[in-house]
């Protein structure tokens, strides 16, 4: 109590949290039941009690510097044991939604992609772009537009050249925005740690150390859903999420392979088109498994969220539903495009294909701007949590990593 701190409440921040689904935040009376009930809350830095207080007081910078909100998977245990109906789980969800917007660059994209009308608009705009590109490309190839003649094959509409022309700039934007978001988030939470050297610098890990010592274990944990599985009342939600995550990995992998074989190997060797692959091709089999897992996973997530929302265990915001339906559309149009191609129904197949490409681009563009960004920030928080432990224990930060890499490795081996 040696020095007094004047609290400057950020009223706009409180309002933002309340509008994003955290309207119950002011009911909290700080009994801390939530922090004990939470199966994921840590011993040293329990949550979500402190976040509830910061949100009530409008301490936006405190919240911004807090990685713990990202360690929550919104199981709703805290909300059902909350004596006041303050719904801490929902408030943390709202804080996360707000944080994504806070770190989004440019903000206009975040505002657009977090409303249903904005997403529909984006999908339609993307369809228009694809049609224009397709038309221009047909002038070059001489195929008829919009439905090329003969057996349905999507490379007749677009080869990799027009696709890459559209997708690569989007990839560039997404990578840039993700990098900006993650680095500002890291800077904020690192400042929140309050560990400063005598020269005033904050501890920051070297990239190699960061990847090998912290990112790899964090990703392993995420792939296994270790924490999500501990999530009390809604642990079943983890199953759908796990299926979905693995489907994304599988689809990312097959897309990468096809990109490499088609756009490099076949091009350089002048072999023509690698796609469409026959159904017995292992890559195609894998791709179909990925697509089915995607649909099944998102369907499980949808069912569970609907049920838990009806029960009042967790609250769902517009953003939650947008992401679910967008992923569902990507999966459904993907499978639809393949299905109608096999039936050789040209008008339907090419239409569905255009919608598929439009939803894929929209989903991809959403990555740093919508709830989809939990992938970035939660992973960062997982990494940061390990790093924070080491810094506080004097085992990392300010160049100390190098000296203790050998003992750290033996420790981790023992644990395994």
């Amino acid at each position, binding site marked *: 109590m040696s020095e007094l701190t004047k609290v400057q409440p950020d009223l706009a921040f409180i309002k933002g949290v309340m509008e994003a689904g955290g309207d119950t935040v002011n009911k909290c*009376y*700080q*009994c*801390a*039941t*939530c*922090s*004990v*009930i939470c199966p994921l*809350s*840590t*011993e*040293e*830095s*329990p949550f979500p*009690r*402190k976040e509830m207080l910061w949100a009530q007081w409008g301490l936006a910078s405190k919240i911004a510097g807090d990685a713990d909100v990202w360690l929550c998977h919104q199981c709703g245990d805290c909300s*059902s*044991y909350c*004596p*006041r*109906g303050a719904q801490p789980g929902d408030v943390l969800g709202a804080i996360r939604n707000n944080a994504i917007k806070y770190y989004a660059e440019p903000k206009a994209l975040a505002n657009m992609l977090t409303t249903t009308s904005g997403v529909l608009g984006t999908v339609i705009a993307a369809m228009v772009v694809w049609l224009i590109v397709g038309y221009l490309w047909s002038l070059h190839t001489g195929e008829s537009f919009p439905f090329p003649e003969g057996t349905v094959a999507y490379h007749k509409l677009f080869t990799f050249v027009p696709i890459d022309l559209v997708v690569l700039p989007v990839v560039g934007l997404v990578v840039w925005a993700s990098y900006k978001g993650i680095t500002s988030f890291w800077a904020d939470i690192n400042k929140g740690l309050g560990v400063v050297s005598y020269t005033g610098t904050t501890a920051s890990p070297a990239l190699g150390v960061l990847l090998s010592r912290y990112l790899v274990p964090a990703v392993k944990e995420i792939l296994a859903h270790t924490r999500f599985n501990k999530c009390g009342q809604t642990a079943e939600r983890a199953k759908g999420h796990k299926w979905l995550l693995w489907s994304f990995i599988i689809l990312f992998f097959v897309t990468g392979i096809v990109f490499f074989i088609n756009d490099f190997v076949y091009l350089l060797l002048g072999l023509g088109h690698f796609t469409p692959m026959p159904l017995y091709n292992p890559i195609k089999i894998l791709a179909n498994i990925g697509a089915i897992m995607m649909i099944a996973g998102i369907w499980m997530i949808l069912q569970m969220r609907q049920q838990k929302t009806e029960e009042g265990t967790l609250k769902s915001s517009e953003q939650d539903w947008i992401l679910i339906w967008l992923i569902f559309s990507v999966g459904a149009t993907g499978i639809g495009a393949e299905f109608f191609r096999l039936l050789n129904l040209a008008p339907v197949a090419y239409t569905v294909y255009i919608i598929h490409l439009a939803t894929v681009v929209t989903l991809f563009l959403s990555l740093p701007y919508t709830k989809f960004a939990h992938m970035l920030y939660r992973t960062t928080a997982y990494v940061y949590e390990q790093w924070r432990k080491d810094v506080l224990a004097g085992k990392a930060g300010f160049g100390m990593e190098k000296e203790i890499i050998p003992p750290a490795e033996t420790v981790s081996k023992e644990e395994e």
Partner: protein
Amino acid sequence: MSNSILVVGGGFSGLTAAVEAAEMGYDVYLVEKESYMGGRVAQLNKYFPKLCPPTCGLEINFKRLKTNPRITFYNLAEVESVSGSAGNFNVTLKVNPRGTTPQCTSCKAGEEAATTEVPNEFNFGLDTRKAIYKAHPMAYPNQCVLDKDAAPADEISAIASAMPAGHVVPDQEAETVQLNVGAIIMATGWKPYDPANMDNLCFNSFENVVTNMMVERMASPSGPTEGKVVRPSDKELPKTVGFVQCAGSRDQNHLPYCSYICCMATLKQVTYIRENNPDADIYIFYIDIRSPGRKYENFYKKIKADEKVHFIKGKVAEIKAGSAPGSVVLVAEDTIGGGKIEQEVDLAVLATGMQPTGAHDQIPGIEYDDDGFVVEKDGITPCGCAKRPVDVVSSAQSATAAALRAVQTVRRAG
């Protein structure tokens, strides 16, 4: 039209209301469900504000009751229904059989003849009683009770023959009594909130998790452990005791209101434990300590000055088995110090709150709110904990006020 007043409940509030109304010159019927008067206060070891044993306040009221011819009282009696309106209520009472005659003041011979033991509800099951018993040594009326259903018929006849001739009447039957009264005072009091409802506090899983009312009985010289607050598992004096405040109170999943008395009850019980064992460490886990008024605040300050008493701001939301046999671990977040606390204690006390009797047992014709508190209506006045959670002092005050209100009702109607 009637000028008489019915008081339902013979605890501190009901007794006060009854004697106050009678001393103003009105005929009073006092109905008590238990075999003894004094209600919850009779179960306490000591009570605020003077920290004297219950006899010190109850005795004087018993004397006023005994010596006032205007009061007719019934024990083991329940109000079955109420109808009519202010000035003219028709009330049906059921008076259950006591199985003994008024000269039966000592159960000793019968108790020796009895063999069956049943849990003693007066001591919250911490010990047992026989089929013939007195709830506690200072019970008023000072008359034994025969619990015919507690033992087989041949044991009941053995008890009857062991007792002096004519004292025990096993075949006594319940009576129905019709009353016509002008006003009703509801002083039906409260029950301790059932701790088993808080699944995370595991009351039924650990023997050494007790409630604050159980501590009162243990601390009472006439209680099951002769005044020692011990661990039920091994009857040892605990070296560490943890108090879990707001166990059920201020919680919309249980009791949405503050029960008012639990903070002071805990601070009082700290003195019992420190008197029993000067080396005991006590941990009090709380959300806010509510010590209303100057006297209570000073008492809180006094307890806070004791360095063996540790206050932790944070509610216990999990209780698990400890490392030592019988011990339990209380888990809370220390909201001031930061971090989670896992405190192992020999004995954990749940400061359970008050639930009005109306939450479980409602009388047809009486209106209750969602929590079971009696709603005041013309001619029907609640007082004490039937109205809202209060301490003994406030109960007595609200009972006096209710007596005045009842008198006004019958005068206006008459």
